[in-house]
């Protein structure tokens, strides 16, 4: 599988590379054809670049240049390294599901004593049976941009579909209330530069309750790598899903992740994302309210320094009436850190009584840091409450002086104000334990500033 699905312009070389890779990827029958379709869709456009509006601030042709060859299945040394990395990443009381170099590893995962109503499988099994994951319609349909058919799906989602090897497939049956959060951990520990193509899916049945955490980490001394991930979440009527994402990749890693979320009537979806790691990361989330009365809270914090680049792109589609959404994002940027936030909310003609608010704020700690915030509201209904705002600024000198006059050093004073700045987003996390976990990660970032 050591084939780079690389080059952008030279269509033929790319096709040949894929043809060779395809035969070694898991899947038979329909899967092969769908992979080919997905690949063709990607190959027509190649890596997205700045002239594509949705990727304007994250030009992968400049930042990433090529897609690395697919990672090999982990050997014993890689598994040992992954095990060590996981020890440092433990969250108490969760059910851990581990992917190493893009391959599900049962022996590192916690598959025992499954609660009633919980079923866990792998993407690989599904593909090898010739079945394409049914939830895929969510991702293949670009919910936010139906008129631009030639742009569908997003090229990086198409690439993920063409190349995906493994992932976790989770079903929570109607009415089941999972007490233990599910924790998917992606561990990178390759000896050579490589890419991982993973796709996971979670369906929370009617009236069910679940929490999903996704972490991205690297073992010590992992070679540079690329994460190409997709997560599909379906929250049925009256169900609730809490979702937390933590990008703690190594500093030279690429993380290109997409999520598609479909919400049934009166579903409740709360998602939070923290990015402290990775060199270049993009998290694009497509949320579609398909049933009336659903409630969405999306929030996130980017803490970046060095030359880190993190892009959060949210597409929120209010297609039906009486749904509410809140988006609260904060970025803290030091050195030459670059944060991108794009949030598009569409309120369709039928979506009366929509209540949608989006607020994004960036804090620049250095003259060379950059924040690009692009909140967008497209409203086609006339009886709605919608608002958005964006601010970019530096720490307030008068607050800093007050704290320093009380004995705090410059770094301590900054740390306290930064924590307050990101606090409003972190407070959106419902679980006390998980909120504390995220606060701990943010504090480690602050402490590392010295």
């Amino acid at each position, binding site marked *: 599988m050591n084939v780079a699905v690389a080059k952008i312009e030279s269509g033929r070389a790319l096709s040949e590379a894929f043809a060779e890779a395809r035969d070694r990827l898991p899947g038979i029958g329909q899967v092969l054809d769908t992979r080919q379709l997905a690949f063709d869709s990607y190959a027509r456009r190649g890596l997205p670049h700045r002239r594509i509006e949705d990727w304007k601030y994250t030009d992968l042709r400049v930042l990433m240049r090529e897609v690395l060859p697919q990672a090999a299945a982990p050997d014993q040394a890689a598994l040992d390294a992954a095990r060590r990395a996981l020890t440092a990443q433990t969250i108490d009381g969760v059910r851990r599901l581990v992917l190493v170099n893009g391959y599900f590893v049962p022996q590192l995962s916690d598959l025992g004593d499954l609660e009633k109503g919980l079923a866990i499988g792998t993407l690989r099994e599904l593909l090898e049976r010739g079945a394409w994951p049914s939830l895929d319609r969510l991702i293949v349909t670009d919910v936010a941009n139906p008129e631009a058919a030639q742009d569908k799906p997003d090229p990086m989602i198409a690439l993920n579909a063409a190349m995906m090897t493994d992932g976790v497939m989770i079903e929570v049956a109607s009415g089941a209330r999972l007490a233990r959060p599910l924790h998917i951990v992606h561990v990178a520990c390759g000896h050579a530069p490589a890419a991982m193509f993973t796709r996971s899916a979670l369906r929370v049945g009617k009236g069910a309750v679940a929490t999903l955490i996704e972490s991205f980490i690297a073992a010590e001394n992992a070679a540079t790598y690329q994460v190409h991930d997709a997560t599909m979440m379906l929250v049925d009527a009256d169900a609730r899903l809490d979702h937390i994402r933590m990008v703690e990749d190594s500093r030279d890693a690429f993380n290109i992740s997409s999520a598609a979320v479909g919400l049934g009537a009166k579903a409740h979806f709360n998602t939070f994302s923290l990015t402290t790691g990775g060199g270049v990361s993009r998290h694009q989330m497509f949320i579609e309210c398909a049933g009336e009365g659903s409630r969405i809270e999306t929030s996130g914090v980017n803490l970046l320094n060095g030359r880190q680049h993190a892009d959060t792109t949210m597409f929120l589609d209010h297609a039906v009436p009486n749904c509410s959404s809140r988006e609260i994002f904060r970025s803290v940027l030091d050195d030459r850190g670059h944060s991108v936030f794009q949030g598009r909310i569409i309120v369709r003609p039928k979506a009366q009584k929509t209540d949608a608010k989006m607020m994004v704020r960036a804090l620049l700690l250095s003259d060379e840091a950059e924040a690009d915030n692009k909140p967008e509201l497209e409203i086609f209904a006339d009886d709605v409450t919608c608002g958005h705002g964006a601010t970019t600024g530096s720490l307030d000198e008068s607050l800093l*002086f007050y704290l*320093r006059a009380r004995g705090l050093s410059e770094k301590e004073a900054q740390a306290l104000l930064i924590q307050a700045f990101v606090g409003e987003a972190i407070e959106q996390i419902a679980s006390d334990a998980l909120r504390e976990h995220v606060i701990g990660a943010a504090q480690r970032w602050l402490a590392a500033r010295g």
Partner: protein
Amino acid sequence: MPLLEVKNLHVRVEEREILHGLSLVVNKGEVHAIMGPNGSGKSTLSHVIAGKPGYEVTGGEVLFNGENLLEMPPDERAAKGVFLAFQYPVEIPGVATMTFLRTALNAQRKARGESEFSTPAFLKKVREVASRLNIPQDMLRRGVNVGFSGGEKKRNEILQMALFEPSLCILDEMDSGLDIDALRVAADGVNALRSPDRAMVVITHYQRLLNYIVPDFVHVMSKGRVVKSGGKELALQLEADGYAQFEDVAA
């Protein structure tokens, strides 16, 4: 050795000189009042002593226990015992008052090589001081000064003063924005902290505050200098005659 010695201090803000050779000596146990009209440089003096950025000292020196205060960052001055009660205490949303107090107290103790307070010991101390100052517990649960009235903000300053136990307290226009009842409460808090080991510099516009915090010395500032010094009776004279008589002296 005096606790605070300001010698011939010249200070500029951008292109404008605000203090033109100000001198002041404050010993332990003394309470000094600095009075003067708007723009005479009273607040500038307090800011320069506390280390607020944006002021350029072009001449003179400020010694604290004989050490050059102007070379120290603001946090080091705080740890050495300099406390400025702000005229307008800032609101810091998202920073819990208790977190702020504990971080500040422990930062000062650490800088002095003292052991940090444990959480229970700290809580006990804050509760003790707060009840002495009639500060309700719910004020401590809010963000720093967030939603506080003018009087509550000033009480919060005095609470910090009581907690940090500084040797020099500078009270910058403590009476501004306070009604007479709030003023009395604040003044009682300050008076409780008077001690032979501690000096206070009370900066004020009006004589009224000095009915409650009775000074040992009164200095009149005009146009960036101390133009007259005297005992507490000087404040009463000012109240009767106004500042106009001193403007000529400074000119």
